[in-house]
């Protein structure tokens, strides 16, 4: 197990009486692909929203690479290397695919406050954008308007924007939802490759149990804002509490097959 990237201490978040995170304590480790599972309303998306800064925590601390980020604004967390993609397509709809990726690439290079250079002339930006496009297989569509892409390609673009920020830790919220099998394979290959090269540590929220169990090295099961199971895919399959509240028969099948 690698060094600890993200440490969460006594994290709480509630909406009125609905508790979505209750005294959460855990660490995420470098290089370990982790999946977060749980039934609808378990608090998975809320957890990602709190960790990445979209929602403020009620109490508790979030430390990223030894630095407290609990109250840091979103863009600062992104600059530190904490990235995310979204569950629904959340791209720059009326911009080209190239521009969609140029925005995070320029931000990373601290070029976005540049008023007088032309984007078209920044050669190294083109190189970086093409690299990401190549990773997700969207190179041929670089000059199409994002909203004219097929749904699956928009999902790829969604992940690509997150990758373009060069995160150390990347949360993917249902990355394969709405993708066809070819796109799904491509995105899973990309995740494996980047994970093995040690560039990015992935945390994935996913409903597809085949993907969860084939991809992840660690699975965390959430239920009503609490962690009810945390361990290797095998351990989670065998965990009676997880089976009871969430997986039920599905795990039985998986374990048998």
């Amino acid at each position, binding site marked *: 197990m690698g060094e600890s990237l993200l440490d969460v201490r006594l994290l709480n978040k509630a909406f009125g009486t609905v508790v979505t995170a209750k005294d959460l304590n855990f660490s995420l480790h470098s290089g370990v692909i982790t999946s977060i599972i749980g039934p609808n309303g378990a608090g998975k998306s809320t957890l990602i929203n709190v960790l*990445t800064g*979209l929602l403020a925590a009620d109490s508790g601390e979030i430390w990223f690479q030894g630095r407290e980020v609990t109250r840091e*604004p*979103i*863009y*600062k967390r*992104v*600059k530190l290397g904490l*990235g*995310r993609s*979204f569950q629904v397509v*959340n*791209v*720059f*709809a*009326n*911009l080209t695919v190239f*521009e969609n990726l*140029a*925005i*995070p690439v*320029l*931000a*990373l290079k601290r*070029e*976005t*406050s*540049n*008023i*007088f*250079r*032309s*984007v*078209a002339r*920044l050669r190294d930006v083109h190189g970086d954008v093409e690299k990401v496009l190549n990773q997700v297989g969207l190179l041929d569509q670089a000059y199409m308007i994002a909203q004219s892409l097929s749904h699956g390609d928009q999902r790829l673009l969604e992940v690509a*924007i*997150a990758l*373009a*920020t060069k995160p150390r830790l990347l949360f993917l919220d249902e990355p394969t939802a709405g993708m066809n099998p070819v796109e799904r394979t491509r995105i899973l290959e990309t995740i494996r490759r980047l994970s093995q090269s040690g560039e990015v540590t992935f945390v994935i929220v996913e409903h597809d149990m085949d993907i969860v169990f084939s991809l992840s090295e660690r699975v965390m099961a959430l239920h009503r804002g609490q962690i009810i199971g945390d361990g290797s895919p095998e351990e989670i399959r065998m965990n009676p509490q997880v089976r009871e509240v969430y997986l039920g028969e599905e795990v039985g099948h998986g374990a048998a097959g």
Partner: protein
Amino acid sequence: MNHYAKYLLVLGCLAALVIIGLVGGPFTLYLATRTMILSIFALGYNLLLGRTGLLSFGHAAFFATGAYGLAITSIHLSVHPLLGIFIGVTAAAILALFIGFFCVRHTEIYFAMLTLAFGMMVFALIWNMRSITGGDDGLYGISRAAISLGVVNIPIRKDYQFYFFVASLFVVSVFIIHRIYLSPFGLALAGIRENHIRTEFAGISVKKYRLGVFTLSGAFAGLAGALSALLESNVAPFSAHWSHSAEPVLVSLIGGLQTFSGPIVGSIIFVALREVLQRFTYNWMLWFGILLLAIILGFRGGVVGSISGASRRYFRQ
């Protein structure tokens, strides 16, 4: 449109600017100068509205700050036009930075209403600080002194001289704003318009960039105000009134929010239309409103936006 057509168009416009300056009568020169001043106002404003997606109702305050800045400098300090313009623009930018600081953390209707409220406060201040601003009389007797640059003096007193002075500042403004559209900063602004949450998740501080573009557009409003004070040789408090803030909104809408040249074309239509209607109709505001409605509803994406869209479809076939 290909590159050559674009260059030809730009050259044609520059030639037209020069020809108007050389052969135009006083009235034509006056209208053309006003059109260019309104264009500067609207081009800067559209960086905020069309590019970043923020609707401000407070830009008359920055226009008036530029105008009063020049007038006060001219009356009390120095009649040098460049100094007056510099002070006017700087004052407008500082005011925009200050007001923007409170406004940019809000979006949409809240942002628009806050800018409106600040704009009303500025109007009230100008109206009441009689000893400095002249109150409801405004300030008058602003002279168009020659621009002395050490060895040479460039006179701007005559209409055509002032026309060329404004035209050169207009060309410089167009050039700068065009560069901003093509720059990384301009792309970040488009990102904020399209999806401000995603922009933040791309590692960009949306608040800072909104404040940056708000200040920039305030500075261009200030430049327009300072030039208009020189043109009219007086400033009136109603240049700060919130109804004046509607002008760049309308002009940008007429020309096309999502186009670069929209505000220029919009300004031409706006000034020409108002002049004709004021002359030939009894109730010009009514007709003006009806025609604006027809243009805004008839040309989707503005005059420039719909024409360039139509020509793109035509050439693709």
